[in-house]
């Protein structure tokens, strides 16, 4: 009906259409609600909602953050019993006691003691690190949900001076901006403090919370730090000016003898005189504009895993075809070694895995100990690594070859005539067999506990096959030696006369001489 090219393009289009909604829809991508949600999300930005209050609740197995919004609704994000819940629906999984739970717990501990406007700032820039796999995906879903939250209007901070810290207390040194790596985190930490916790010392300067102005004709001696508000300069500041979560506005006629730094804000030069440098450092963009990982749905996870499996399968298939085409004898010898000396190959592979790193170290050290050998170290390292990879991959493909060959023989023995008895088919069938457990994992890996068990089984089986292949490749010297391949035939059996009289292969119906009965011994019995 359709030309193959049209079909291919159609498949590609369907793939894009099928894959794209996975990034936007967070729940069942095939439900009508999800479809509406998908198109709604596709054509508008993330909705901004004003949070007027927030709550943190923790128990032995759950940690919940709730934002109360202007319109009376709530946003609830929770880690409970291994599941990441967003507004009551599962958005992913986490490992109890793992990195995600630790980062979430740390965030909630901070949020428990800050007012809602600061909590909003805090969650918008929450960026846990060190996450992998499903935890990383789940964290992306949490961050995506948190990104749309803004503080409710009317939550402005009352301007006030910040009390000085006692000796040994928190100090923010803004006399120089040379060490931003140290200064910026300090400023961020300070900006998270509220109430009685907010006490700090500014060497040669002062600190204020909320909007702050230096009036026309006024002179501010020393450096100026403003948290959560704009610094409006009409007069003169003899020192540096720093604003965190606010702008610095230098009006006409104003003078700042030092430099200006705005963290999370701008510096607006409205005709003033800034003698030093003007520096700005934006808020982290992760929570607002940086691309985030797609939400994880069951279908999406399965699709991604399936694509990965298909990619690996095709790659191995291509490599296997190449080996059959260009190194047929070698792969057959390794495959025969697998079939004939399975246990020995497994032990050799196990030993090889244990010794591969120490051997490498010994080679490098040995070369390094000699003067001439030092120059060979890079070459030896590359060659050794390549050999190890070729041995591992080649061995695995040989195992697949052996599996396919065994299956073909059994089918032929059962009388089937529709059997492809060639190396390409052997490897294809073998790889398919090796991939079966992974296919089950792709389909059912999302099931709690069972999914992990399937994954474990698949890893175990693949490791065993790889170990056997590695060992067989080692035993057969990458297919160059057939001592363990069951191909040995004693030289005396290869004489023409013997072969003519006694065919060795393929004729099980040959009539062999019957066993002769042993005549009774003529030796007289021993004397009593």
């Amino acid at each position, binding site marked *: 009906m359709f030309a*193959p090219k049209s*079909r*291919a393009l159609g*498949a*590609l289009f369907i*793939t*894009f259409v099928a*894959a*794209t909604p*996975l*990034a936007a829809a967070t729940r069942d991508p095939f439900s009508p609600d999800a479809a509406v949600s998908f198109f709604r999300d596709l054509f508008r930005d993330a909705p901004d909602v004003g949070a007027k209050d927030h709550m943190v609740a923790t128990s032995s197995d759950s940690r919940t953050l709730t934002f109360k919004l202007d319109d009376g609704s709530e946003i609830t994000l929770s880690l409970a019993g291994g599941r990441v819940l967003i507004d009551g629906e599962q958005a992913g999984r986490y490992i109890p006691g793992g990195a995600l739970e630790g980062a979430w717990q740390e965030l909630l501990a901070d949020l428990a003691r800050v007012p809602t406007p600061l909590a909003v700032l805090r969650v918008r*820039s929450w*960026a846990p*690190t060190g996450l992998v796999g499903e935890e*990383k995906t789940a964290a*992306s879903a949490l*961050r995506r949900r948190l990104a749309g939250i803004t503080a409710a209007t009317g939550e402005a901070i009352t301007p006030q001076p910040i009390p000085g810290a006692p000796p040994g207390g928190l100090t923010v040194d803004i006399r120089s*901006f*040379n*060490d*931003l*790596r140290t200064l910026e985190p300090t400023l961020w930490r300070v900006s998270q403090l509220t109430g009685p916790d907010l006490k700090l010392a500014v060497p040669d300067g002062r600190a204020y919370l909320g909007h702050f102005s230096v009036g026309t004709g006024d002179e501010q001696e020393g450096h100026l730090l403003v948290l959560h508000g704009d610094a409006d300069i009409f007069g003169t500041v003899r020192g540096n000016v720093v604003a965190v979560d606010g702008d610095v506005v230098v009006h006409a006629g104003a003078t700042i003898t030092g430099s200006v730094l705005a963290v999370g804000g701008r510096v607006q030069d409205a005709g003033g005189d*800034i*003698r*030093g*440098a*003007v*520096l*700005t*450092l*934006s*808020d*982290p*963009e*992760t929570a607002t504009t*940086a*691309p*985030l*990982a*797609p939400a994880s749905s069951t279908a999406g996870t399965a*699709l*991604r895993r399936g*694509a990965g499996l*298909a*990619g690996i399968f*095709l790659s191995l*298939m291509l490599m296997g075809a190449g080996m059959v085409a260009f190194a047929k004898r070698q792969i057959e010898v390794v495959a025969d070694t697998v079939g004939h000396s399975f246990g020995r190959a497994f032990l050799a592979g196990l030993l090889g895995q244990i010794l591969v790193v120490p051997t490498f170290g010994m080679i490098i050290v040995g070369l390094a100990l000699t003067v001439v050998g030092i120059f060979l170290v890079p070459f030896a390292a590359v060659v050794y690594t390549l050999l190890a990879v070729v041995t591992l991959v080649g061995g695995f493909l040989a195992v697949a070859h052996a599996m396919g060959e065994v299956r073909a023989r059994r089918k032929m023995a059962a009388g089937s005539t529709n059997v492809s008895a060639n190396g390409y088919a052997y490897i*294809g069938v073998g790889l398919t067999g090796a991939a079966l457990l992974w296919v089950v994992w792709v389909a059912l890996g999302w099931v709690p506990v069972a999914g992990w068990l399937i994954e474990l089984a698949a890893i175990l089986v693949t490791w065993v096959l790889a170990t056997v292949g590695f060992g067989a490749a080692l035993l057969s010297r990458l297919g160059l030696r057939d001592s363990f391949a069951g191909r040995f035939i004693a030289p005396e059996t290869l004489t023409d006369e013997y072969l003519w009289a006694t065919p060795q292969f393929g004729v099980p119906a040959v009539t062999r001489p019957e066993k002769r009965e042993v005549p009774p011994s003529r030796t007289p019995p021993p004397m009593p």
Partner: protein
Amino acid sequence: MRHLVRGAWYVGLWAVGCGLSTPLAAQTMRTFTVERKAESASQLRATVEFGAGELSLGPGKAGMLYSAEMRYDQERAAPQHRFDPQGPQLDLRLRPIGNAGVRVTNREQLAQRAVVTFAPGIPLDLDVTLGAGEGQIELGGLKVKRAAIRSVATRTVIRVDRPNAMACETLDLDGGAAEVYTEKLGNLRCAEIRFDGGMGQTRLDLTGRWTSTLRLSAKQALGTLTLVLPKDAGVRIVLDRTLSSFEPTGFTKDGNAWVSAGFASAPRTVLVDVTSAVGGLVVVWE
């Protein structure tokens, strides 16, 4: 078998489609800006170091001594800005966190970008180091007194589209494992250009408005070195090569050097000293 091939083709398309449709993973990008008015500065010595990403460097607004905008991944890098009014001297860097040297982990890291500009009319002593990524450096319009540009693993393009307002003393280029491409370096009016290349392709374009004598010293370990020379210039090349090729068309042998026709009477001359290990030297006349 045909079905198998067709099925594999569809699976491949599907896998490619899924790969293209997957958004990038999260990262934490920040933007750092800095600028300073020229005030009474009579010169500037600037050091710019950019670990990974795209760097654009060139002339900026008059009256602004320097300005920079850096977009970086705060989990992997940190900006550093120091200014010493005695000199004056600027030290502007985007360094990998931990000072572990250049480290490129994935394509996302290369989303880092920086735009650095300098005052057009103030004598500049410039020292630039590029890590991994791409560098676009426009020296035309600047008043370059001396410049040193090091590329570790970068594709670097250096252009000088306008003649330097002052004679440049030296230009040092260090190619590392990078591809270095230059346009109209002659406009810098340098007395000497030194190039030290490791691996990669290099194109040194010495055309532009310059007079008298230009000395070029170039070392290339692995790769082709292409010299673009003005047609009216007399050229003398001393070539030390190991496994390199050189087609001396238009040159005659003079002792251990290759000399272009009309070298003695040329209005301007280029004295080239090339050391090439593996690769070749190509001369192009423009």
